[in-house]
């Protein structure tokens, strides 16, 4: 907002004249509510990985949802194991603009014993060429929470 006003005061930034192209900067503050997913993010700050267990059909979701997509019943929060395995992976050498500074980074989908669905996270501390499907991994948590899903990541474990 401030910058927009500033630019109007200074005039427009022209990027081209034929055709006429202006630089138009915009940014916003958005009130992103986690709403019913909030306990998951609070859980991360307590070094807990919270999934959802269906009270009716028993389906267990690694990525939480407050209602079961199998049967429609409400779910309960349940603690997931902190160790799992790499279900699949990739190392990204490019990315969306906000993540470019963080490249290369490795993404994994984690599978947990006794849990029906998967969880997306980053894998840290591994040479990309040594990552493979089935690799045992353990959850690590940020000391200072930022209340984002990146408050949890995974590392290779030998157990």
């Amino acid at each position, binding site marked *: 907002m401030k910058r927009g006003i500033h630019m109007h005061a200074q005039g427009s930034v022209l990027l*081209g004249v034929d*055709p006429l*192209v202006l630089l*138009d900067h915009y940014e916003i503050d958005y009130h*992103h509510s*986690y709403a019913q*997913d909030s306990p998951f993010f609070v859980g991360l700050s307590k070094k807990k990985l919270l999934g959802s267990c269906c009270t009716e059909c028993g389906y267990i*979701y*690694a*990525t939480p*949802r407050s209602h079961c*997509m199998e049967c429609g019943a409400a779910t309960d929060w349940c603690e997931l194991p902190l160790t799992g395995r790499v*279900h*699949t*992976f*990739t*190392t*990204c*050498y*490019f*990315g*969306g*603009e*906000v*993540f*470019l500074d*963080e490249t290369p*980074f490795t*993404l*994994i*989908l984690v599978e947990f014993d006794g849990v*029906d*669905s*998967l*969880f*997306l*996270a*980053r894998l840290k501390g591994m040479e*990309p060429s040594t990552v493979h*499907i089935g690799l045992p991994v353990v959850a690590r948590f940020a000391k200072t929470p930022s209340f*984002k*899903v*990146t408050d949890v990541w995974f590392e290779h474990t030998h157990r």
Partner: protein
Amino acid sequence: MRPVYMISGGITKFAKAHINKDFRLMVKEAYDYALRDVPRFSKDMIDGAVGSYFSDHFTRQLKAASMVQDYLGLCPKPSKRVEGGGATGGLCFQSAWEAIASGRMNCCLAFGFETMSRVNTWKGNEFIALASDTNFDFPVGGFYSGYYAMMVQRHMYEFGTTVEQLAMVSVKNHVNALCNPYAQKAKRLSVKQVRESPMVATPLTMEDICTMSDGAATCILASEELAAKVCDRPVRIAGVGSGSDTMRMADRPHDKVMLLPHEQESDYLHLRYPGVHSFRGGRMAGKLAYEMAGIRNPLEELSFVELHDAYTSSEIQTYEDLGLCKYGEGGRFVESGAPFMADVNYGLDIPKAGRLPVNPSGGLLACGHPVGATGLMQAVFAFWQLQGTTSKHLGDDTLQVQQAKRGLIHSHAGTGTYITVSILEAT
């Protein structure tokens, strides 16, 4: 439901940037081309329109389809916008089909566009990644190429698919596009060059991934009566289907395969489906479209396919979803030569080319992917194939599939969250 026909189409060349044309002018060019191709047709026969574009972030103009509607001089006729990620164009085509099949309209225009050049490539990737869950997926490193890379890693693990097989798709589609003047990125490539191009997300390189584009496309759909009156060679839309899957890949089940008529449960005794290696929504879309069109064995009954190859890997995954081969055989399907054009030299050692050409146009990999236009571009190419008019429209008949009777077009969103399949037939 009434029979529905496509009577004309047009494309505004897909390019990295059309800085001198906004979305209204891009659509107008494709629209005027379509009108010129049916001289006995006139604008007043259009009962309404459906517009398609993917992202308000890219356009920076909400209600942009309304501006196209007035630019084309179609006010006050019915109009709406359809949006469904990468499948926006396919959904738009089917929405126009619905308007006629239901009897609500006798003629409906489908138009689509995207203007992706106004931001840099990596901001564009960020905009696209916002079409993933913003609580759980986007913040981890939201990047569609990363999501597709994870899917193909699992496909390679389950089925032994190789990066060389992926690269063959890239070679095929880029070479096909050499004879398509509407394409953005036609070129001759080798498997080695695909593998040696910069790594984006392992195992996908720059040449495994489509580019962003500016472009537009239009299709005119009509009732049987109107089509017979104004068009010498209308093309019948014989079947439509669509499907969906969970927004987050992590939530996909690991269950049983949804079978097509030519498959049996014993084909997939140990396969946990769809997992992240297959697109259940694509299988659903294909199944519904085949049922409506009366197709029992797609490999035998289709003449060509234009499918959503945003990634070389997703082309291989889609062969399987559409039942062109069994699940797990997609890599070998491309190696067999089946999806190549019979008479095009690819510089590859292919056993037997041309059984069922896939993406003769060059697909998204070579044509580019101006999202809202892409699914309609596929329909226009399929229309020209089935009319036998590719040489008239492309200036060259290299890409004409001989005796093309029936074509399939496939439009795909997200990590497989919305998918459409439409079957077109020559008359």
